[in-house]
């Protein structure tokens, strides 16, 4: 058995050249969260029909990475409330919100969800923020599809500013 000359080990990074970047955890995580929102459409009324419109081919919400509609709150991170919420519906909505895992965001679409709309009477909740916290409000009755898309862009901006570390340490 002859002694062979084994090359001295080198630091692995040497061979990698420019193929990696350094960044913050927040930026990576937020990038991922922002671009793959999975919406749960809590559609009750007319606004839900417009929501179906933006999922379909003409407006195509998949351009913004939010096309994977999930009908289980456990698999979704974006709750879109499209339609009027009545007092009869309120416990259901509250429960669905509680079933969603963190991180979760809420978009209130349309006049009814945001403020009760023009149904100001004995049975309608005057804005879902009486029941659950809301991130983005969209105006309109129903909101135009462009407004829906804009709300998703706004939500992405908002997600970008969030910090994983902060959430962990402060515990929110």
């Amino acid at each position, binding site marked *: 058995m002859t002694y062979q000359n084994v090359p001295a080990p080198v630091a692995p990074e040497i061979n990698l050249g420019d193929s990696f970047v350094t960044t913050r955890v927040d930026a990576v995580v937020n990038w991922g969260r922002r671009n793959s929102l999975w919406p749960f459409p809590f559609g009750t009324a007319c606004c839900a029909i417009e929501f179906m419109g933006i999922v379909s081919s003409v407006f195509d919400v998949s351009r913004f990475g939010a096309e994977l509609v999930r009908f289980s709150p456990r698999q979704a991170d974006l709750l879109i409330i499209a339609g009027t919420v009545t007092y009869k519906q309120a416990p259901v909505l509250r429960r669905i919100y*509680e079933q969603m895992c963190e*991180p979760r965001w809420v978009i209130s679409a349309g006049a009814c969800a945001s403020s009760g709309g023009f149904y100001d009477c004995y049975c309608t909740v005057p804005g879902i923020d009486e029941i659950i*916290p809301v991130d983005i409000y969209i105006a309109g009755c129903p909101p135009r599809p462009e407004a829906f898309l804009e709300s998703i862009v706004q939500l992405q901006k908002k997600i970008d500013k969030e910090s994983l570390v902060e959430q962990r340490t402060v515990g929110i």
Partner: protein
Amino acid sequence: MIAHRTHVPQGPIQPGLTNEQLATLLGERFALTRDASDRWDLTLVCKAEQLREVVKYLRDEPTLSFAMLLDVVGVDYLAYPGHRSERFAVLYPMKSLAFRHRLVLKVMVDEEACVVPSLCEFYKSVEWAEREAWDQYGIVFAGHPNLKRLLNHHEFVGHPLRKDYPCQKRQKLSMNDPMIDQLEARLRSLGYTILERGETSVGQAITRPSAVPSALPKAGGKP
């Protein structure tokens, strides 16, 4: 279950009777009178005691054959200018599928008793329509198998479409109706005998009492 007799019309619709002919016919037979406010259609005032008899006749008489009871409409005349008689009324718009005639039966309902006989045994469509009228106006339909609220939630107090119910008086709901009792009643009516209630995931899961919270999470904060 209740036996429902219905004639299925064959062929195209026939002309049928005019409003005047109908009014005379029913006026002679049951002493129904035309309502004072009927200008466009035929509205006949009927006494509550007669109602079931009249409806049965209207449905089963081959020359009339009012096969469909379209709706049960409650009305509260409390704020109606110049109204002197009973406070409530129930309107029963009916139509025939064999003939081209329609009519509306109107029954005045006294505020004290607030009772009208139920028509559930004549038309299947009536059951829910009467529940709705009860829910909205508090008119009791005597003989109804399941007179429960339909549109408003089960903790609602009062009857919102009465003219003295304030439009913006909101009533919160703490938990949804488990409906197990209704399901059991339904199974019983289908011939089942219930031995044991057993585990009902529904009753427990939905009636969790945290439903509408008193303290809200911080709105607008990071969720």
